[in-house]
């Protein structure tokens, strides 16, 4: 309390201020204050839940916003970059070897299917030589 701004002005002025501190308000105003609070509380209780607001700490809001922005950027980046429109060009080649740079995925799928049938028929020949011999006999 040694700070001059902490001290009250002087004794005479402090006396005046003390009188002013004793100012009280009439009963009607007290009633009006209570009525105002009662009305405001009733209004607040009637407010629908989705129109109510809550206090959220600013750092939390900033962190949540950053997470949202980063997530959105990460999911939108391939589209904006154009890489998402490019088809997967690594497809099976003639001998089951992965070839890069094939142009049509649809064609590649069909081709892979045909190649797989072809390879299955060769598997029959190699795993069941008796069958092949029977066929030759007939």
């Amino acid at each position, binding site marked *: 309390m040694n700070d001059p701004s902490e001290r*009250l002005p002087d004794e005479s002025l402090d006396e005046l201020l003390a009188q002013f501190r004793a100012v009280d*308000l009439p009963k009607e105003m007290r009633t009006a*204050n209570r009525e105002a*609070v009662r009305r405001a509380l009733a209004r607040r209780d009637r407010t629908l839940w989705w129109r109510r607001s809550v*206090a959220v700490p600013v750092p939390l809001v900033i962190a949540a916003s950053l997470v949202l922005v980063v997530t959105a950027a990460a999911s939108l980046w391939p589209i904006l970059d154009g890489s998402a429109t490019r088809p997967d060009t690594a497809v099976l080649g003639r001998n089951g070897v992965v070839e890069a740079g094939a142009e049509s995925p649809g064609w590649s799928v069909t081709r892979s299917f045909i190649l797989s049938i072809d390879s299955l028929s060769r598997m029959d020949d190699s795993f069941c030589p008796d069958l092949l011999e029977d066929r030759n006999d007939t």
Partner: protein
Amino acid sequence: MAVDYEFVRGLRKGESAAYEALVCRFEAPLFRYFLASHGDPQLAGEQSVDCFGDLVESLPKMTGGAQQLRPFVFAVARNVLRRQWRRRSRECEPLASASQAIDRWPAPDAAVESAEDNARLFKAIRSLDEPTRNVFLLRFIEQLSIAEVAESVAEPIGTVKSRLHRGRQRLQEILQSMSGLS
């Protein structure tokens, strides 16, 4: 003034008992604060009512602990005061409606209004500029700490101290000149 945690929690939850205690605790200080700002008891009464309505809306959003309550209440009061000034400067209220309002609201303690010293003090306080008057009232009439005043007016402690120093000097000058005239 010890404001306990349970009391503030009750206010945040909207408990009517807590608001009753709030009104009991702050109605006289708020009335004095408004009255000292403009000297109109009827308007001070209306502003107290507005302020309590605003407090019901804004108290659930109050951040900080129980020690923030007093600065928060006076910060809301300051907003009510500013809103009123803006409204009055737009509307320029006629004198007739003011007299009707006084009929509705009886004047406060007659002794206060009739006392010459208090009238001088009112006049002197009102002649201070708004920021200085605000910190002066909160510190010397409502006896908030410097830190509470700083929080209430959202200004640094150093600024509040210099305003108080200036306000005290100015008030003494005004009161001396008034007593010299009378």
